[in-house]
């Protein structure tokens, strides 16, 4: 175990995989200088400019080229910098990466890991703050991963690189500096599709992912003081998502809150809430509940930005309301 930041953990995971498998390589803008968040620091020095490739500002081609390179047997790690800019490469993700294997009757494999940092991060405003995980969960062929901890950002990144499917890999920009214990063993990966019970509880289940795991844990601590026992489920992977973990937690608590940073409307929380309502509708102690941001672009100004954040208070209030229902 080492104490690493979320960024360092990803770096460790990527460099281990690059050492282990010469077919793994990374491409994106400014990677040679360490990437925009320092999450590639030193990699070009170790692996050279052929395997840590500085690209032109050509998102469509960064993504399209990765698809081609994957189809001939390499395993590209694509850096798209911000989930917002990834929109410049959506066609290549959805129409090519996600569909190639199926469309060509199984002849193609597209083992690309597509990193697109998400989330609100000090006054980044409307074009540098989005969380669009729900979009990719809606697209057949894609795997969607959202690590919340340094350990997971190593283990899930490694698992994603080893996966033969295209993986949308969303790191949260507000977590880069978060430190935690990270396994040193290069063979340790975190399996895709398995949730983590971040906190055990009996009264209310909070299903969440990415940065909201930490906010939910704070809320759970606060609620414990008020006598409410909250179970926090960190989904880690949104597709496939761990239905078993969620359904069995809700079977225990009878109450579900889904907490996301993304816009509430048509977010991934809707999928979880709808599924639980479909499967367990009759057995719940209270109706399901979703928290997420209002359907507005994200503001620059601090007080405006804060206004759209899901906070500890929101979760506490929702949990208390549910418990009272």
């Amino acid at each position, binding site marked *: 175990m080492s104490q690493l930041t979320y960024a360092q953990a990803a770096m460790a995971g990527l460099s281990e995989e690059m050492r282990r498998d010469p077919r793994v390589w990374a491409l994106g803008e400014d990677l040679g200088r360490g990437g925009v968040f320092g999450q590639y620091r030193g990699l070009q020095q170790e692996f050279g400019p052929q395997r840590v490739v500085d*690209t032109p500002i050509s998102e469509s*081609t960064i993504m*399209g080229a990765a698809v*081609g*390179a994957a189809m001939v047997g390499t395993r590209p790690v694509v850096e798209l910098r911000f989930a917002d800019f990834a929109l410049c490469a959506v066609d290549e993700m959805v129409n090519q990466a996600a569909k190639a294997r199926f469309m060509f009757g199984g002849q193609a494999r597209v083992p690309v890991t597509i990193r697109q940092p998400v989330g609100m991060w000090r006054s980044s405003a409307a074009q540098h703050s989005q969380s669009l995980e729900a979009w990719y969960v809606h697209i*057949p*062929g894609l795997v969607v991963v959202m690590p919340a901890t340094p350990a997971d950002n190593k283990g899930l990144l490694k698992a994603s690189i080893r996966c033969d499917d295209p993986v949308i890999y969303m790191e949260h920009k507000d977590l880069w500096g978060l430190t935690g214990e990270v396994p040193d063993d290069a063979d340790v990966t975190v399996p895709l599709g398995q949730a983590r019970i971040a906190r055990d509880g009996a009264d209310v289940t909070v299903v969440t992912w990415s940065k909201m795991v930490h906010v939910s844990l704070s809320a759970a601590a606060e609620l414990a003081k008020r006598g409410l026992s909250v179970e926090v489920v960190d989904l880690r992977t949104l597709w496939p998502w761990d239905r078993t973990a969620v359904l069995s937690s809700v079977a225990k608590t009878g109450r579900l809150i889904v907490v996301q940073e993304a816009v509430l409307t048509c977010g991934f929380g809707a999928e979880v809430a709808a599924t639980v309502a479909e499967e367990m509708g009759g057995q719940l102690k209270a109706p399901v509940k979703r928290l997420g941001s209002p359907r507005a672009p994200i503001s620059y100004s601090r007080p405006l930005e804060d206004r759209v954040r899901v906070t500890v208070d929101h979760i506490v209030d929702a949990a208390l309301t549910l418990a009272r229902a």
Partner: protein
Amino acid sequence: MRDSKRLAAQYLTMRRIRAFEDRAETMARDGKVTGAVHASVGQEGIAVGVCANLLPSDKITTTHRGHGHCIAKGTSPRAMMLELFGKAGGTSGGKGGSMHIADFSVGMLGANGVVADGLPIAVGAAQGEKLLGRDTVVCCFFGDGATNRGPFMEALNWAAVYRLPVLFVCENNSYASTTRTETVTAGPGPSARAESLGVPAFSVDGNDVAAVDELAGRLVREIRAGAGPKFIEARTYRLHGHTAADAGAYRDAREVEERWTSDPIARCAAELRRLGVPDSDITAMDEAAEREMADAVAIALAAPWPDPRTAFTDVQDVGAPV
């Protein structure tokens, strides 16, 4: 002197493509082939002249109008016809249809329904091959209409920046669907765009298969030797409609008629005769091509549908539908 054996082989491949597409269009009009069918009738010289210079290990990508490239690269027309019929045994098991034919066993990395999307894929394939230490050449076919989409420019720049082994082949048939491409394309044209992006460009009469063969042969050798990407602009004409359902009312009948006089197959036949190839040899090739494709259709008509459960296979390993 031109090599008549090589040219005859190219003639045969062109004839096979033509025989395949004529039938594909008929079957589409008969409702046997259900999706859109985009025939490359009149453009076969480019597919054949270029692919004649590729090794089986070389790769190609193509577009919605890709039957010719597939056949020229070695894909089985029988499997292609099964695919067009949506039948079991098709190149994609019936999942793809005409616009998504692929045959990875011969380096055919897939046709594409999104205009210009094959270019970034091709440059990436070249980059991957280079990383794996192979001396593969990747050839990327696309139309004149595609040269107005951003990924065209990005991919050319990319190939030049990394000096990738890519041969770009622009089939300039003057049309993009119902639109005359020149009406929506500014500047001197595809070759000038390529040059401005650092990719040396060469123009050729795409309806002269021998000329295409010669130019592509030279460029493929240079590319394989490490010269970086090259660009061919092949002038040609789409003799049929945009799809089998398109009567082409937006073009003057005389324009089309006149262009038929430059049909690459007829021109190649004339050249073969000039080189002393007997008519009977030519007729034999014609008949072989027709027979092969008639068989392909018969087989496709008789073939079973794929198991409907395959609608859910080959989606993904992790989180596959159940």
